[in-house]
């Protein structure tokens, strides 16, 4: 069964669902197309464009924080070419990985889930050795996205790789919370903006069939000096053709919220970078971003990585750990989950 709204031509069913129902569904309501399987209550994707900014660290520790709050959390290492989430969590080289699932058609997702040693937190490790592990084929991606949507967990956390390849972006935009990790550095901010733009344009692209704006989106994505540089321009064009469609398009674009996490903040000014970025983004693109907060630069976090343990477990009282807990609490608050006292 299809939802009446967005069934994107090239988009996985998962996207269709995510786009089609901006309002949160009742807990554990299965998506129409996925039989009786339960859907994760919420999907968090952690991206950021640039490498080495702490995406895996944030994912792992966020997973720990949410699990410690009493929720079932499934971490997925979607950084197919550079998987190392298992290392962040102190899980040895995993026996089963995502690539096993992708290669063998019959494997079930459950078969590749490994425990992490943290109660209620489990992991699907990323692909390891296969040469083309990072080059997910379209069908494989579809399968993965679909299956992930059917995974059983309260929270599904996707740790994405660097870059803005469609393999990364597509995971990002299917999430309920797109966490954008940013360092207070121009390089990172630059990539973060690029990533966010790519995400929104990808979303547009997936909706294009419905609105008949293929040409516009394509030109927006390809022109170098073209006039269609921002979403405003695209929307403006669509509006000229189809005002009602533009309204809906705008609503759906706005429904996708990017949430900022500033990592490795070294100064007090760095703590405000998230707000500034969100504000500038809104000014130019008219789309809200949320600032979830900043994580202080913390040697404890670095030491924890050296020990291959999440800092939240290694040093729960360190500034980094506290910041992650605050972020987790904020996410829970956004989702309307009563915040359990963190142990």
């Amino acid at each position, binding site marked *: 069964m299809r939802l009446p709204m967005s069934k994107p031509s090239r988009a996985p069913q998962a996207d269709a669902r995510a786009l089609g129902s901006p309002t949160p569904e009742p807990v554990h309501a299965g998506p129409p197309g996925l039989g009786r399987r339960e859907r994760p209550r919420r999907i968090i994707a952690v991206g950021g464009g640039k490498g080495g900014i702490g995406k895996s660290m944030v994912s792992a520790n966020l997973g720990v924080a949410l699990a410690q709050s009493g929720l079932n959390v499934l971490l997925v290492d979607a950084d197919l070419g550079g998987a190392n989430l298992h290392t962040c969590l102190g899980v040895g080289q995993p026996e089963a990985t995502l690539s096993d699932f992708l290669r063998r058609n019959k494997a079930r997702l459950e078969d590749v889930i490994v425990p992490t040693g943290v109660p209620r937190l489990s992991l699907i490790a990323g692909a390891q050795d296969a040469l083309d592990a990072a080059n997910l084929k379209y069908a494989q991606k579809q399968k993965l996205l679909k299956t992930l949507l059917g995974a059983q967990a309260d929270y599904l956390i996707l740790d994405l790789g660097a870059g803005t390849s469609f393999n990364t972006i597509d995971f990002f935009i299917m999430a309920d919370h797109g966490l954008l990790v940013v360092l207070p550095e121009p390089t990172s*901010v630059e990539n973060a903006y690029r990533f966010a733009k790519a995400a929104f344009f990808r979303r547009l692209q997936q909706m294009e069939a419905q609105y008949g704006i293929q040409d516009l989106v394509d030109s927006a994505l390809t022109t170098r000096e073209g006039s269609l540089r921002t979403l405003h321009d695209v929307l403006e064009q669509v509006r000229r053709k189809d005002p009602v469609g533009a309204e809906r398009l705008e609503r759906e674009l706005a429904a996708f919220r990017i949430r900022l996490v500033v990592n490795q903040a070294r100064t007090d000014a760095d703590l405000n970078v998230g707000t500034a970025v969100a504000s500038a983004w809104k000014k130019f693109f008219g789309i809200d971003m949320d600032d979830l907060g900043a994580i202080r630069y913390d040697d404890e976090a670095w030491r924890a990585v050296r020990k291959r343990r999440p800092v939240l477990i290694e040093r729960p009282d360190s500034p980094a750990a506290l910041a992650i807990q605050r972020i987790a609490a904020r996410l829970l608050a956004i989702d309307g989950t009563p915040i359990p006292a963190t142990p």
Partner: protein
Amino acid sequence: MKPFAQQTYYELLEVPVTAQMEEIHVAYSRLMELYAPDSIAVYALVDADQVDVLRARMTEAMEILTDADLRVEYDKDLGLPARKVAEAVTAPPPVAEVGPTQRAAEALASAVGASAATSPVATPEVAGKGMEEPEPELSGPAAFRASFVSGYSLSYVTSSLQTAPFGGGFMGMPAAGRMDGGAASTVESGSSAAPVAQVSPKTVDTGTEATAAVSVAAPASVVAEAPSPVAAPVASSSAAPSGESPVVAVVATTVQPEASSPAASSGESPVAASSPSDTAGSSAADASAEAQGAQAPASPAATEPEPEPEPSVPEAPVVAQVPPAPSPVEDVPVPSVAAQPPVAEPQPPTPAPPSTSIVVAPPPSRSTGTSRPTTSPTGASAQTRGPGRQLGDAQVLAQDAAIATAEAAMAQVSARVREARPRLPEIAADAEFNGELLRRVRETRGFTLQQVADRTRISSRHLENVEADRYTLLPPPVYLRGILMNLARELGLDPLQVSRSYLGLASEKSGKK
């Protein structure tokens, strides 16, 4: 989702429509920091030009919203309830506004500056004093303003003028009363499209009043001069005033203040002072006569170093202030109104005795008001007096200082203007894009060679060679074409046209050689 180009000033500054002055300033400085060129938050977000445009818009917004009159006008345009008028009026008086006022003054100055620069009236006088330099610069900003704030700046001028006359009439009246008067005046003038035109009616009123009092009338000539700068509106006004010195004085003063205003309020006062004196001297004995007549008693006092002759020498201050009046005009009228009360108080008594003094007095009252808020009261008053009466060295010095500040301010304004609205020189459709033309376009855009090189990533050596038409030193056509396309794009020209034209020239010339 609204691109910032379509946002209201309030949305731009992210303040509620009820925001107080203070709030607006805080928001403005925060945003300026956020959108500073080196701010990390805008790095790679959008083109640098877009950030510049945004900043220019924000500055414009701040200037309008912190100017009580302009804000009222703007709110009216937005369809906001009128109650805000009251708020706005009350808000300006606070000292905090000095900053805003100055900015507003700057902005207006640029607008006015244009008119002033063009206007013969202001120029001659100014020129005499050594203001010539600022004038040319002013034209740039003026143009900018015209396109930028056109409606508002104009209305602003008008209102200020209005208030001035009113102030004269109602010296002791409460602010509210004046506001009403201002509104009324606007209504009257409403028929005339140009703000200046509106001014004319008011001026006429004042003129009439003044005329009654002061019968000196060299004004005719003055008026004639004024019209040209101001354009049609002035002409109309001039007709009405017929030959009243007061009118002339008002016009002249207003124009001049604007010109000087860019410098900042502090600078303005001296300039204004000088201008009045100029007016007095050059345009006619009218102004001077008035001033003198009215001031005659006061003049001695004014000459005296005493900074605050307010009560005892109401008229003298008035005369001295007449010049400053323009500067106040530039500043927010409201502030002037607020400031007026004190000044007005001294005057009320005076009005009765000399009719002339009354006429003159109104403008002075404003000027005093403005000058005080902007600069330190004593200093301002001292300056005004000095230049106005003595016409001595002090005056010159003050003018020099004013000119210097004015120039600096104008340079700033014009720089901003250039960034915001680069004007292309006229390029014929079939123009040949040689290096010379490309250079002219670049300079019009206000880019240095290095800036273009940085943005296009074309080495400045290549750019130099392109602009100098050193065809033999340029890379092979394949690469040259890319360079030209990028350069043209950066300059806002048609890349294809430029590259085709330039490559054609290059092959032709280098072939001959």
